[in-house]
């Protein structure tokens, strides 16, 4: 089954539930009508929260740049002095 079909089925199921809620009037209809808006807003807030958390927890590795410079020096040395290949300057 294509992924988009899965998502659409989920939306259809949720919509069906919403319509049932409207008809059954367990919750006052004025509230029920606003449910989709609450849902979309919550989804947006959840998304923003995930992005915020992700940025705060973003793994960084400044030491890797230092290690990389060591590797480059090592490689340059290998090519130039051991084998006479000049791979250029940086």
């Amino acid at each position, binding site marked *: 089954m294509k992924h988009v079909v899965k998502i659409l089925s989920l939306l259809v199921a949720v919509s069906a539930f919403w319509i049932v809620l409207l008809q059954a009037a367990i919750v006052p209809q004025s509230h029920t009508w606003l449910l989709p808006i609450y849902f979309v807003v919550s989804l947006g807030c959840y998304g923003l929260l995930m992005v915020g958390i992700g940025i705060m927890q973003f793994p960084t590795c400044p030491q890797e740049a230092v290690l990389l410079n060591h590797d480059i020096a090592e490689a340059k040395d290998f090519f130039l002095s051991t084998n006479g*290949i000049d791979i250029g300057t*940086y």
Partner: protein
Amino acid sequence: MAEEKERKGDGKHKYSIIVPTYNERLNIALIVYLIFKHLRDVDFEIIVVDDGSPDGTQEIVKQLQHLYGEDRILLRARAKKLGLGTAYIHGLKHATGDFVVIMDADLSHHPKYLPSFIKKQLETNASIVTGTRYVKGGGVHGWNLMRKLTSRGANVLAQTLLWPGVSDLTGSFRLYKKSVLEDVISSCVSKGYVFQMEMIVRATRKGYHIEEVPITFVDRVFGTSKLGGSEIVEYLKGLGYLLLTT
């Protein structure tokens, strides 16, 4: 002077490392040196797919071939810049290993992680092992806040819409079983980094076993960046396409 290296260790598997290049004269020699350094007891070949670089990349590769042997470094060039996806397909045609590694030549992907990719695959018998920058043990250096924001935002959006099964969708440091790569790549049509996303999403949809290993990504220390333009639009279009067709 050709250096003969005695290859011992696990002789059952051979790893074909495809490295697409365009104007990577400065970096390709470093990459080759580091691959040889970190894969001492592994049977591998490096396939350099160069798209007619005007900066002399191919000349450097030929010198490297002279040093390491033409059976270890394959230069399979193309006449002009034809794009990443076709570069992989081109490299794949010349691969003689049973596993294929794809990686960038600009030093953002460090060959020191290659052993961990290989180990993970042997432990789990995964069809694909993909590097992820976004988990503990991985990481990025050289990104400012804006870059991190777009990366995170793109990731959250993609996770919500696509349920891709991996934490790093746009990463291109991956190890594939050769047959799996051939199968997945034949059904992908996107270009650029959306192509990387399409590959991993299609692989997930086809039910392939995918594992992740943390990698560190040092951004573009040397050489000029090939990314530019309206990336965000491209990305959203790519997401939409993947949402509807996978």
